[in-house]
Every structure is written in C-alpha cells, then in structure tokens.
C-alpha cells in the first residue's frame, strides 16, 4: 500500500521544495508516496496511474519491468504524474541521497507540467478521470463480457496514434452557423444590386457572374464531399460517424481521451527530461548535496545521463541544450551581431556579460516543444560537441551504420523523427468513397514507406469499427498503392498519385 513520507523524508521534501521555490520553479502542490519495488513497477505499468481499466498490456509492461528489475537490468527511480496536485512516487528501498535526487528531479517535471504551453489543455484531474474510465470499462465488461471488450480495446489501441496532436490548441471546424452566414455574404451569384437597368452589363459583366457561379458551385461540391477537408483526428471521426454500439462508443472515447492526455508528454520528452535533469543537477550541486553523498550522486547522475553507445538519450540532449542556451544568453551569443560574426577568435571569446541565461531558459520551457526547441536552439557547434550523427540500415552490409555527421542532415533527421512522434501522418479523405460509404485514408508520404504487414493489420481493425470497406492510399517503393480491406480479404492496387 502506498505510504506517506516518513518524518525524515518529509523534512527532506520541505528542504528540496524550498530550494526549488528559491530558484523560481513554479509547481503544483506535490504529493510524494512511497512504494515498494513491485508496487512501483505496477504503477509504472499503468502509465503512472494506480487506477486504470483492466487490460493485458499493463500486465505485459509489468512483466517487463519486474523481470528487468529482478535481473538487475534497470530500475525505476521516479514517476511523476501530470495532475493537480502533482503525484510522485518514490522507491522505498532507495538510499536517502537517491530520494533527494528524485525529489529535485520531480520538482523540475512539476514546474514543466504546470507551465509549458503544451500541457495547457490537459486534464489536471486525470487521476480521478482515469478512475472513472476504469469504472466505465468494468461496467462494460460486466455487461458484455471481458473477451469482447478487451478485443475492442485492442482494436481501438491499434488506431490510438491517429489523432490530431495539435487539435487542443486549434479550432479546426468553424461554427456551422457562422460559416453559413459567411457563405451567404459571399453569395454573389446574382451580382451586385443595379439601380439603373442600362448599367447592368457594366456592373455585372457576364464573365464576372460566371466566375461567381462557378465559385459557389465549387463550394457546394466541396460541402457534398465528406469530410469537407481531410480529417486527421480519425478517432473523433469514428466517434461521430461510425455505427458504434453504445459501449463501443464509450470505450473509443476513453482511448481517445487518454491518447490526447499523453500526447503532450510525447511532444516534450527531450525538454521535459532535460528541464528536470537541469534542475536536479542544479539543486543538488549548489544546495542539497552533503559532502559524503557526492560519489553516489555522481554515480547515479552519470547513470541517468549516460547513453548506450550510439543512442540518443533525451535526458542528456535535453540538459545539455538547456545549459547551452543558458550559456549563450549569459554571454550574449545570439542575435544579428553574433550570427553575422565570421571571426572565429571573436566568436570563441564572445562574452557580453548579459547574464540573461536563467531568464531565457525559463521562457524556453514555457513556449517551446521538442520540435521548436531543437529547430531553434540546436547549433552546429552543439551537434559537434555532442558527437551527434545519423544512422541508417545498410542493406549491403546488413547492419546499422553511422551515415552522416553533417549538421543539416542530423538536424533534419532529428526533426523528422520528432514530427508527429515520428509516426506517419494519415488522414481520412473520404468517408463515402466510390459513393458506397467506404472509408478512404491517405498517407502523406515523406520518403519512408509504411510497414506493410502492420498497415494491413491496422486496416483490418479500422474496418471492424467502420463496418464498411476501408482503403489506405500510400506509396511503396515510389509507386502509389491503395491497400484495401473489405472485411474478408486484403487487396492491393496500383494508383496514380
């Protein structure tokens, strides 16, 4: 059972929290709970939430976590939930120094959750919401039976990544009433009002009338198309338009809601971990560490920062980038003068002693996500210093190889891997394909083909929700193809793109 903090740990918490506030971190209230290792593994398997609906994949996660813990391969130090109040879990068996480190790290995350723009639309009562979801799913299970419900959840999860990750910030579909009024105002088929009949031909020349008529007709044709414009939130579209039963609707909406809740964490992985690491390092090394703890601290800190050779560790890249930004803004290494300076010596010794670094990184943590963060602050110098490279699969040698170290390519590849979580962009383009109520999706091909067998399995799942045949248009080896599943068989057809 989760336990509250011991008096000693509570003192430590107050101490660390004091440092965090002193540095200007702005957190939700943070509740720490102490768990034994198997409980921590459990909560981690549930994605951080102690109450989650029943599903085998938590068990799978748990199997992995507990196995790798038992074999000593890995250990979870810390777990934080984006919620108000923020919940964080500590591992009971950890030494005091570890608990301090974790607490400092947690306050970093907490501040990030509260202040980064990506999280603005997340539900801050998610702990309660998850518990509600669990109740709803359990109710369905009681009514419908576990096999059917679990099966349906599996199919929903298969489509889980088909959301529009920017949707919470944008209103995609304009208010229908407003749209109607606007289109009426634009309705000029009849031409402008004419007082004197002999002027008609001049005020409303035939060519103008024709072009207006055509415009309106186009507009109408578009409205006939359904959906009007490509729809990226496939889950929402299915909720609105697929012939789902009530319990299916309920479960799909749960899956969708949770996907949206977790999306910002995926969008800010590098920043979030970088920020938390920056703060645990700053708090520990300037305030909280005792002399006797320095070796253990260094050991564990380097364990977190270390990356398997050839891997990109978000903790490492994140913290180094924040430090780099702080340093550059402290020394005034930005702006027009800096960009235009070609003198290497001047650049190396550039220090305007502005001291804006701290202020700048606080701004950055508020207004950026991983993509804009990397796009704006990853410099060639940084990439060289961090020994970054791109890798790829060499068919000739049948092995993964380092492909390139050139800055532009490294950056492009990194940004590509972050865009849409490194997942393909797939949209619904037509829900009445071939005028037969078939669903047509299009993959925006960016140079990488889809994994074919997975795509077919996913289509099968999609079809089972939509009930009518579904088609996905994509490219394979530079040729357009349409994958189709009609409920019994998969077919593949060449198409012109």
């Amino acid at each position, binding site marked *: 059972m989760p336990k509250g903090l011991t008096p000693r740990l509570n003192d430590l918490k107050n101490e660390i929290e004091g440092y965090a506030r002193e540095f200007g971190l702005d957190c939700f209230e943070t509740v720490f709970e102490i768990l034994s290792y198997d409980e921590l593994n*459990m909560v981690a398997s549930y994605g951080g939430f102690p109450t989650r609906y029943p599903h085998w994949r938590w068990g799978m996660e*748990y*199997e992995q976590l507990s196995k790798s813990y038992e074999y000593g391969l*890995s250990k979870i130090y810390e777990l934080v939930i984006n919620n108000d109040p923020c919940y964080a879990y500590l591992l009971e068996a950890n030494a005091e120094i570890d608990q301090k480190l974790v607490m400092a790290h947690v306050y970093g995350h907490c501040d990030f959750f509260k202040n980064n723009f990506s999280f603005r639309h997340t539900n801050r009562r998610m702990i309660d919401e998850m518990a509600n979801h669990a109740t709803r799913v359990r109710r369905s299970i009681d009514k419908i039976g576990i096999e059917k419900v679990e099966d349906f959840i599996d199919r929903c999860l298969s489509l889980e990544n088909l959301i529009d990750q920017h949707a919470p910030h944008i209103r995609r579909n304009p208010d229908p009433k407003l749209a109607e009024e606007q289109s009426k105002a634009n309705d000029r088929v009849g031409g402008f009002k004419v007082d004197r009949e002999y002027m008609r031909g001049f005020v409303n020349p035939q060519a103008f009338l024709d072009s207006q008529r055509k415009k309106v007709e186009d507009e109408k044709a578009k409205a006939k198309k359904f959906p009007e414009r490509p729809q990226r939130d496939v889950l929402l579209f299915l909720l609105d338009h697929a012939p789902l039963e009530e319990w299916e609707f309920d479960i799909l909406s749960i899956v969708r809601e949770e996907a949206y809740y977790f999306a910002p964490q995926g969008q800010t992985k590098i920043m979030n971990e970088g920020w938390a690491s920056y703060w645990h390092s700053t708090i520990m090394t300037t305030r909280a560490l005792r002399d006797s703890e320095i070796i253990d601290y260094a050991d564990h800190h380097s364990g977190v920062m270390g990356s398997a050779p050839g891997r990109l560790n978000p903790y*490492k890249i994140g913290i180094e980038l924040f430090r780099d930004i702080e340093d550059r803004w402290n020394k005034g290494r930005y702006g027009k003068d800096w960009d235009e300076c070609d003198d290497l010596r001047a650049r190396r010794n550039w220090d305007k002693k502005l001291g804006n670094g701290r202020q700048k990184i606080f701004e950055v943590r508020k207004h950026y996500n991983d993509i804009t963060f990397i796009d704006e602050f990853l410099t060639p110098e940084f990439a060289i210093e961090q020994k970054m490279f791109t890798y790829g*699969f060499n068919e000739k040698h049948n092995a993964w190889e380092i492909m390139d170290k050139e800055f532009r390519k490294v950056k492009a590849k990194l940004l590509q891997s972050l865009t849409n979580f490194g997942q393909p962009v797939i949209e619904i383009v037509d829900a009445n394909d071939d005028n037969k109520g078939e669903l047509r999706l299009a993959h925006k091909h960016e140079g990488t083909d889809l994994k074919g067998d997975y795509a077919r399995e996913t289509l099968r799942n999609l079809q089972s929700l939509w009930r009518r045949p579904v088609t996905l248009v994509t490219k394979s080896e530079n040729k357009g193809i349409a994958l189709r599943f009609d409920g019994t068989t998969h077919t593949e057809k060449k198409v012109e793109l």
Partner: protein
Amino acid sequence: MALRIDQDHSRFKQIVRGKIKANLRKYVQQGEMIGKKGKETISIPVPFIDIPHFKYGSKEQGGVGQGKGEVGDQLSPGEGKPGDGHGKAGEGEGEHALEVDISLDELAQILGEELQLPNIQHKGTEKIVTQKIKYTGIHTIGPESLRHFRRTYKQAMKRQISMGTYDPNNPVIVPVREDKRYRTYKLENLPETNAVIIYMMDVSGSMGDEQKEIVRIESFWLDTWLRHQYKGLESRYIIHDAVAREVDRETFFHTRESGGTMISSAYKLCRDIIKADYPASSWNIYPIHFSDGDNWSADDTRLCVEMLKTDILPTVNQFAYGQVESPYGSGQFIKDLREHVGDQANVALSEIADKDAIYGSIKDFLGKGR
C-alpha cells in the same frame, strides 16, 4: 501480497502462452527461436502482442544517435535501434518491446504441452542426488574465508574518500568492519541422471544448405526437450560421407563435403563411442541420424541394419532417424530401415519434407516417451 496488476499480468501470460502455442508451428518452421542468449534465456518474438499501428518500416527510417565513431562505422547489435530503453522510466508511456523472455526450460514445457509429449522414463540408473554449492550473492556478514576482497576494498575506498581520509600520495586503504563484504552461497540439488545425444549427419554433396537448416532447427528442439528431461546432457557430433569422423558442434552444422555416402561408417563410429564412453547400464543414450536417404550400396545398408540390431539398439533408449528430402537423394534408406527395424520399440523414423514438416517430425521422435 496481491496487487491489482496480478489480474492483468496473468491475463497477459495466458495470452502469451496462447500466442506461443498458436504460433509454435510457425517458430519451429522459421527457426526464429534458435540463438541462445546468455546462458539459459532466449528471446522469442511474439509478433502480435505488439498491437499493430500504422508505422514506418524501421529499416528504412534510421535515426539520430550520439557517441564516438566515424561515418560508415557499424553500430553494434542492439545499438541505436529505434525505441526507448533506459534506466529511468519517465512519466509517459514507452514503446512496447516485442520480445518476451522465457527460459529454455519454460520453452521445453510449452513444447511438451503443445506436442503432448510424454515425459521420458529414465532408464535403469537410480537417481543419485548430489548437492552443489553455488555462490549467489554478497552479504555484509560471513566468515573471513569467504571475504570478497575486491568489494571490500572498493567499499573501504569509497568510505575513505567521502570521509576525506584518503590520501592519493599514500593510498593506504584500511577496511573497517562495516566495509567487509562476503560471498554467500546456496546449496543446489542436482539429480544425477546421465544422458547423451549422439548426432550423426550425412554431409555428402547431396545435402544442401536448406537440408542442413532443417537439421539444425530440429536438433535445437530435440536438444531443448532432452535437456529439460535430463540435467547435464552431453552431446557428441559425427559427420560422415564415405568415412565418418567426430567433430565439434560448430563443424557439425557448417561443414559441407562432397563425395559418396557410407552410412555404416557413422554407425560404426557411433557404436565405438558408446562402447568407450557410455556404458549402457548407467547412461541414457540417444543416437540421432539425419541424412537424405541415399546410401552407397545395398550391401552397406545391410551392414547398417546388422549393426543396429546387434550393437546399437540393445544399448540405447531410442534410435532416431530423420530423412530430409533432397532433390538428389533417392530416399531409399528409410524404406530399408522401416522394413528391417521398423517394428522395434525404440526406433523412431521420420521423413522431413520441408521446414513445415519439422513440427510433425519432432512429435515422431519424442512422442514415444523413451
């Protein structure tokens, strides 16, 4: 203590077992499971436990890494593959790995269940249980004779550095009682049953790579099962064309010779090995022979049958012959064996047409419970 997750966990395990069972045929056929990792564990990909998504094919995608190395350097296996995996689990959700680790023992059990294999009745020997000491851990107390010098030294050094009493110019480390670390051990019971597999394979020109692959996969499964049944299984390997010789495992699976085939040469060697090293009274013996069924002459076949009847069959638990189909072989040998020794209880004969047939063949070999 029961945790909430136990329900999900056991459900997952059921599915995995179900998955493994359902896909077992496929694994056996594709040989995906070969490749022991570490000592006992092997990784089994369970493809559909990963819920399918629309995603990129990983080989085409590549990514960004960090670390030493020049353009063109290979990343060692396991490095830089897409996916996430480090000590700290963040607050988000990670990517689901595709592999489930199960030990060879578990694998053998699943195999046994799936093929409905009977447990083997151990032959003759009474079970002598020996105890073995295994050093398994480190403790803070213990007898001085089991003190772990390096750990103790490290601990003392750590303490002295943090206390500030360590002087690099005079690096004397003095351990105190709290620094000392001792080995701890466990007693393990080892049942003393002796078993040996003698693999024989025809490596004459007519056995191609595909045939060898079949032998390799089949051997792996036989090995796994017998290892599950006997602790401390020995293996011997014989290859033959016109003459036979004993080789190590590596050579056994990779040699390719050419020339004629005299199966009797292998049986002769097998007989000699048994005579020299494995007295039938205390050993469970499993000779297994793979060939494409093409023998040099009818005389040689007669010699083989003779040797089986008089020397080999009386001493062994089971003699197994697997005939791999090959475009060149006549496939006559199995017919001869069937005719002459097919009615003996401890003979298992099996024809393996292609990889798909391995599954059935394993059952032929192990289904008798001998």
